[in-house]
C-alpha cells in the first residue's frame, strides 16, 4: 500500500538517483531480467485438477452408539494433500485443485463418474470393489489415473486388477501379513479366530488364512460370531463361554471391520489372551497413535484442518494426492499417462511419514508401505519387522509379491 501512494515528484527523484548510480542500476536491471526470466520459466503455470468421487454406503447398525464415521473421511485427507501440494507448487508455478463429488448409495454413480472424468482424468475413488471396477471399466476412464483409497479387497490387486486403477490403501493381505510377522516375532503362533458374519469379515479371515499359512502360524480354533444379543449388557457373561471351547492359544484374533462386536472380546476371555485383528492390536495404514518419523507433524496439520484425528482412509487419500503431486513436480506434466508411467517407475519415491520411502508395485499398482500395528494410544510395532527379509524390498514381504501376482493388465 505505501508503495502505490508514492507521489509523482518522489518517484521522479527515485529515477534521477537511479540514473546517477547508473552502473549499479544497469547491473541491477540485468539481474532483474535474469530473475524475471527465471520466474517465467518457473511459472509455466500448470494447473492440475484432481477429482474425488465417493459413493456413500448405506449406514450399518453397530452395537455401540458412541462412534460415527466422520462424514469427511477420506475427503479431509485429500484436501490436506492438495494444500501440501500447493505449498510446494507455488514455488514451481503449479496449482492443484480438488473437484469433489459425493453420490448417495441409490444415486447414479456411473453418470457422476463420467461427468467427473470429463473434467479430469486424475481421480481418487472411495467406494466398494464392485463400484471401483465399474468406474475403471468405463470407456471414459481409459487412460485415466484412478486411485482406490478405501477398499482392501485382495482380488483388486490380483486377478481383477485394472491397468488404470492404483491403490494407496493397503490390501487385507498386507494387513494380515503385518499381524502374522508380529505374531511370529513374539512367538504367538497359536491362534484362535473369531470371524464376523459380514462379507468383509469373511474376506479378512481369508486373508489371515493365507497369511498364517505363509508364516507357519497355527489357527487352532475358529468360530463365526453369531449373537443377536446386545453385547453391551451381557458381554461379560456371553463372551467367556463363547471362547471357552477354543483349544490353548496365544492370540485371540477377530475380524470385525465395521467395529460391531469385536470390542467386547477384550478383557472378557475365558483365559487371559491378547486380542488382535480388527480390535486390540490392529494392523492398519494409519492411526491416531502414529507419531514417529515426523508423523506428529502430519497428525497436527490434519487435526488443525479437520478437527479430528487422521484415519487410515484419510491417510490413503493424502498419500494418493501427494503421489500425484510428486509426479507432477518431477515430470512438470499433468498428463495422466505420463504421471502413471512416472509413478510406477523406479524413480518415484514418496516420503510418507513411515520411515521408508514409499513407491508403487509395478505389477499391480499397490502402494508399498510399512504397516503400523497399534492400539489406541501407541504404536506397538511397524511391519515389515526386523528379520523378515526380501531380495528386493522388505516392504514386499507384505501382501502380494510379484511372483505370486495373477494381475496381468500391468
Amino acid at each position, binding site marked *: 500500500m505505501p508503495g502505490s501512494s508514492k507521489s509523482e515528484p518522489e518517484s521522479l527523484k527515485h529515477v534521477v538517483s537511479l540514473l546517477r548510480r547508473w552502473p549499479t542500476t544497469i547491473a541491477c536491471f540485468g539481474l532483474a531480467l535474469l*530473475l524475471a526470466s*527465471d520466474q517465467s520459466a*518457473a511459472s509455466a503455470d500448470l494447473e492440475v485438477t484432481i477429482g474425488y468421487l465417493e459413493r456413500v454406503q448405506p449406514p450399518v447398525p453397530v452395537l455401540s452408539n458412541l462412534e460415527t464415521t466422520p462424514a469427511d473421511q477420506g475427503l479431509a485427507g485429500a484436501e490436506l494433500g492438495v494444500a*501440501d501440494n500447493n*505449498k*510446494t507448487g*507455488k*514455488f*514451481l508455478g503449479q496449482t492443484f485443485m480438488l473437484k469433489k463429488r459425493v453420490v448417495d448409495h441409490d444415486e447414479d454413480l456411473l453418470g457422476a463418474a463420467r461427468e467427473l472424468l470429463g473434467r479430469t482424468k486424475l481421480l481418487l475413488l472411495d467406494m466398494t470393489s464392485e463400484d471401483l471396477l465399474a468406474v475403471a471399466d468405463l470407456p471414459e476412464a481409459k487412460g485415466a489415473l484412478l486411485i482406490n483409497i478405501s477398499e482392501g479387497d485382495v482380488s483388486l490387486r490380483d486377478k481383477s486388477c485394472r491397468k488404470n486403477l492404483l491403490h494407496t490403501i493397503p490390501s487385507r493381505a498386507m494387513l494380515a501379513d503385518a499381524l502374522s510377522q508380529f505374531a511370529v516375532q513374539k512367538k504367538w503362533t497359536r491362534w484362535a479366530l473369531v470371524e464376523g458374519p459380514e462379507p468383509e469379515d469373511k474376506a479378512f479371515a481369508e486373508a489371515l488364512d493365507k497369511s498364517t499359512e505363509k508364516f507357519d502360524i497355527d489357527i487352532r480354533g475358529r468360530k463365526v460370531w453369531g449373537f443377536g444379543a446386545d453385547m453391551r449388557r451381557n458381554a461379560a457373561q456371553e463372551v467367556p463361554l463363547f471362547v471357552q471351547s477354543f483349544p490353548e492359544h496365544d492370540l485371540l484374533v477377530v475380524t470385525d471391520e465395521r467395529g460391531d462386536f469385536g470390542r467386547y472380546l477384550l478383557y472378557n476371555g475365558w483365559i487371559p489372551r491378547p486380542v488382535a485383528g480388527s480390535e486390540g492390536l490392529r494392523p492398519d495404514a494409519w492411526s491416531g497413535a502414529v507419531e514417529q518419523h*515426523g508423523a506428529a*507433524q502430519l497428525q*497436527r*496439520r490434519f487435526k488443525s484442518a479437520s478437527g479430528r484425528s487422521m484415519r487410515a482412509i484419510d491417510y490413503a487419500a493424502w498419500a494418493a494426492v501427494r503421489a500425484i503431486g*510428486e509426479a507432477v*513436480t*518431477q515430470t512438470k506434466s499433468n498428463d495422466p499417462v505420463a504421471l502413471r508411467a512416472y509413478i510406477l517407475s523406479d524413480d518415484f*519415491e*514418496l*516420503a510418507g511419514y513411515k*520411515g*521408508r*520411502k514409499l513407491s508403487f508395485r509395478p505389477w499391480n499398482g499397490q502402494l508399498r508401505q510399512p504397516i503400523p500395528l497399534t492400539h489406541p494410544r501407541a504404536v506397538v510395532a511397524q511391519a515389515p519387522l526386523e528379520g523378515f527379509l526380501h531380495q528386493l524390498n*522388505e516392504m514386499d514381504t507384505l501382501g502380494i509379491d510379484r511372483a505370486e501376482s495373477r494381475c496381468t493388465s500391468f
Partner: protein
Amino acid sequence: MHLLQYCRPVATAFVLSLASSGALAEGEIWVSNEKDNTISIIDEQSLDVVRTIDVGERPRGITFSQDHSVLYLCASDSDTVQVIDPESGEVLNELPSGEDPEQFILHPDDRHLYIANEDDAITTVVDVESRKVVAQIDVGVEPEGMAVSPDGKIVITTSESSNMAHWIDTETHEIIANTLVDQRPRHASFTADGSELWVSSEIGGTVTVFDVESQSEKAKIGFEIKGVRPDRIQPVGFELTSDGKYAFVALGPANHIAVVDQQTYEVLDYILVGRRVWHMTFNGDESLLFTTNGVSGDVTVIDVAKLEPTKTIKVGRFPWGAAYRPSR
C-alpha cells in the same frame, strides 16, 4: 643429568601429542536433549558430563553467539528461542520465534537469527538485539534445514515435505531460487569457501551438492553399508571440515557416520556410532567430532585424524543438537 637428557625428548613428545589431540583445550560441548528438556554439558578434556541445565520444552536447535557469551536454543514446544547465559545456565530472555522452531542459523552479522518454523511453513528472521521479528518468509511444507553463506548474502531453508532448498536473499528477504532435492531434506550447509551448498535428504538417502553461483546440482552422493538395508540409511545432520577435506554425514537409523571426501565426493569410510545419530559438532581445532545419538541417548566422540570412535558419553533422553564452546 643423564636421566634429564634422556627424559626431555620423551616429555616434549608427550606434551606435543596431547596438544595435537586437543586434550589440552578446555572447551565444552553443549548437547540439547529433546525429550528431557535439558542440556548436557560435556567437558572437552575429561569427556564427562559436568553439568546439566533445565531449559524449555523440547530443545532442539542449539548455537552460540560469535563470542560465545550467550547460547541460543530452539525450545520447540515452548514456541520460543531461549537466550541462555552459559556461565549461570539461566535463561536471560526469550526471542519471538514463530511457532515450533526447530532449526536456526545465526547470520555472520551476529545479530539475526533465521529460524525454521516447522508447523507454519515459514522462516522467521529475528533481530536478537531488539528481540523483534524482522521478517517472515513463506517457504515449503515443514521447513527444517538452515544454512547461511559465509558472506552472509544467502540463507537456505530446506522444506522436508516440499523437497526443496529455498534460496533467500538476506537483504530483501525474498526467495530468489528453489531447487529440488530428494525426499525429506533435513540439513544444509555451505562449504567454508562459500562455493558449494550441501543438502542431505533423509528418505531419499542422498546428499546433493549445489554450485552456489549457478544454483545448479553439481553432485549427488549415495551411501551403502554392508549388512545395513538401504532404506535404513537416512542422511540427516552433517558437518564439513573448514580445511575442505572431509564431510561427516550422520546416517540416522543406520547408526553410522559416513566420511566423505569434500573434493571428490567419494565416501571414504563409515564409522559406527550410537543408535539413530542426528547431528554433530566439532571441537575448536576440529580434532574431535561429537555426534548425538537420539535413540541410545548418548554422544559418540570421534577422533578426526584417525577416523575412529574413541568414547561414548551418556547424556539425556533423545540428544538432538550439539554446539561447541571454547574456554575463555
